[in-house]
């Protein structure tokens, strides 16, 4: 007890590690003009006072909360243990019910100076309010479901920027768009008389298509020849699409592959080559297109796709019928017109407005 005075004298006059002096507020506008604070975690008021200092009082009490569980504890320091510093603080868990906790504090600190009990109860009140507010915020966060997304590490961010730049350069987006649009136009996804093309442009496209179709139709007579021709050309030729399996099949590479390919081909056509018995056009056309000119395996795709479109969307009896009527019995493969064309590997089912 006597040492309290000595301790306080030293702490106040000379030096205290926990003391924090801040410029106080002016009393005219602010409620609190305090400037001396105590950073000791056991201080019940937070101010640096003779009565509040936990070091200079051998009998002391505080309320503190457990950060993980949020429970409130009453810490009591008595003179009897003043010589055992590691056992100074007696930790008593308080009920989570506020009124019960108040009663507990009362009964524990009975006969203690009013100052300490009063301040303890004030602190208890404040800490409960804090806990309630924290719970409310946590619940709100959980309801909103928003989490803080940590910033991307600068190395990774930079790496991604570079990669994006390179990817954009490699993508050649506008070329791809143009190619795709023209492919759709050519394959007839826009219908018979498309609304997004001018007359003369569409006529050009139609002429180009008819030219290729004509070429196909003429080869009908030369089926056998065509196949052999294709066969010869194959090993050297480089394909760029999935229908190579079809080619391999003709090569006789492996039966299973061939089988699978044919299945695939059929499936891809939606089994239409088998189903659509009504239109001779398609069967005939697909037969024709199977044996096309030297460069022509790929034309299968576009032609077959056209077949599919026709069957799905509108019957275009005029188109296949007319060229058929115009079929000229020309002999031999049309070597002169060599369209080195390889269509897209995969087929699309186009949506027509």
């Amino acid at each position: 007890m006597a040492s309290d005075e000595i301790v306080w004298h030293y702490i106040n006059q000379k030096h205290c590690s926990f003391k924090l002096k801040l410029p106080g507020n002016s009393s005219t506008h602010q409620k609190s003009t305090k400037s001396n604070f105590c950073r000791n975690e056991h201080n019940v008021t937070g101010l640096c006072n003779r009565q509040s200092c936990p070091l200079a009082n051998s009998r002391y009490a505080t309320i503190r909360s457990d950060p993980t569980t949020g429970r409130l504890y009453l810490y009591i320091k008595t003179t009897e243990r003043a010589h055992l510093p590691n056992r100074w603080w007696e930790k008593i868990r308080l009920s989570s019910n506020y009124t019960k906790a108040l009663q507990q504090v009362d009964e524990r600190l009975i006969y203690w100076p009013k100052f300490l009990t009063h301040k303890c109860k004030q602190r208890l009140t404040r800490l409960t309010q804090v806990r309630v507010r924290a719970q409310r915020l946590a619940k709100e966060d959980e309801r909103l479901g928003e989490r803080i997304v940590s910033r991307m590490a600068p190395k990774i961010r930079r790496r991604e920027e570079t990669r994006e730049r390179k990817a954009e350069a490699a993508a050649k987006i506008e070329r791809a768009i143009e190619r795709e649009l023209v492919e759709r136009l050519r394959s007839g996804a826009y219908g018979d008389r498309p609304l997004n093309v001018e007359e003369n442009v569409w006529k050009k496209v139609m002429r180009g298509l008819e030219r290729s179709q004509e070429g196909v139709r003429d080869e009908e007579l030369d089926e056998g020849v065509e196949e052999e021709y294709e066969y010869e050309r194959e090993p050297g030729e480089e394909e760029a699409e999935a229908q190579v399996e079809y080619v391999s099949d003709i090569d006789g590479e492996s039966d299973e592959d061939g089988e699978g390919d044919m299945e695939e081909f059929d499936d891809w056509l939606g089994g239409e080559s088998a189903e659509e018995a009504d239109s001779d056009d398609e069967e005939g056309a697909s037969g024709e297109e199977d044996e096309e000119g030297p460069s022509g395996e790929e034309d299968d795709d576009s032609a077959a796709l056209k077949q599919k479109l026709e069957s799905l969307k509108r019957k275009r009896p005029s188109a296949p019928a007319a060229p058929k009527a115009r079929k000229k019995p020309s002999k031999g493969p049309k070597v002169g017109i060599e369209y080195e064309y390889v269509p897209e590997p995969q087929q699309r089912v186009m949506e027509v407005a």
Partner: protein
Amino acid sequence: MAGLDPLKIGNKLKRQQQHQKTKKAKESTKRDERFKRRRHEDKNPELREARLAKNVPATIESKRTWDDANADDAAEGRLGLSVDVLHAKRRKVEDEEKQVPEEINPEDHVGDVEDDEEPAAVGGLEPGVNGDEDEQDELDSMLGSDDSDDEAEANAKLDPPDRDASEAPSAATSAATATTDLNHTPDALIARFPSLFNLDPDISPKVLVTTALNSTLHWEAQLLTSLFPGSAYVRRTAHFRSYKYSVREICSYAANQAYTHVVILNEDRKKPKGLDIVHLPNGPMFHFSISNWVEGSRLPGHGNPTNHYPELILNGFRTPLGLLAAHLFKSLFPPRPEIQGRQVVTLHNQRDYIFFRRHRYVFRDKRGTEKSIQGTDGKLMKGVEEIRAGLQELGPRFTLKLRRVDKGIQHMSGQEWKWEAGAEKIRL
């Protein structure tokens, strides 16, 4: 004797002069060779073809290694695997040639994705039949590109034996940017996300656009409404003390109002940072990050969009995850485009970056100075040699990168797939 060892000339000036001389000489010999070659090949085009066929430059796309495609994995419709769904056959052919186990199976990704029990007897990789083929009368312009992470990009455990151009087409480069055929989705995947894949072609999408809380991107969100036909922008609660509606609540309200999607625009310091797309009613939620958002007015030669329904081009979505994202984008737009509007929205996936563009196109005659359009493998497109398509860019352009797919709405519902920075490389 300055030519003795040009690098060892002590005099800096002389050394520089000598270097310039040798450089000039070297370059001129190269040039002469090139022109000679060109003259030769002009006379004899087959030489050129042979040379080009032999000297195919290696690209990142061509070096991509794929995961082992187990039938059961594919049948489950897992998202994490880097499996080329659409070109499985081709790879089989390549395998036969190579006789080398081609793919690497990165352990981390196998463990990542939860297994759904799919009683799948379907060889999910078969690019064969899909029942949806007939249902989807829509513009399928998606060719295989990989949307999932480029795992084993740089690493191949075994060096592939040197070989000539394989019979399997040099699909690597062409397939990487080829238009995806949406029909070739594995059935297992469709079974897992039925609402996404089995789109009714008569239902027009109804999109609810909103932002994150406390966001200031109202103008950008309005732009998004012009982007998605049938969309509306609703602001988030502004007042400090008012009730803030959570994303889950918004989604439930939207689902009640017959919306099909909720699009949430995230912000970072006044710029769009991310896009979260929820597929209603309780469908998967896709988180994208946005980079390089450029508004239409800042594009040189831009046009103004009309409200015609645009066509859709989806390039380069190859893996199951890619197909999932592609179907999501497809579902965001009305199924039947108005082609008289001549507008096209392109989502081009290249190396996991999805480039979003909006154009107005016109088919016109080729000018004399222009080249003809080439197909994906460099050969001219038949029948349309005299046609070019002019493009005018409209509206915003940005780059998306898929970061996370949640099973339900928001993170708590579990992740289908998550992007991890460390997974981009395989460290042995």
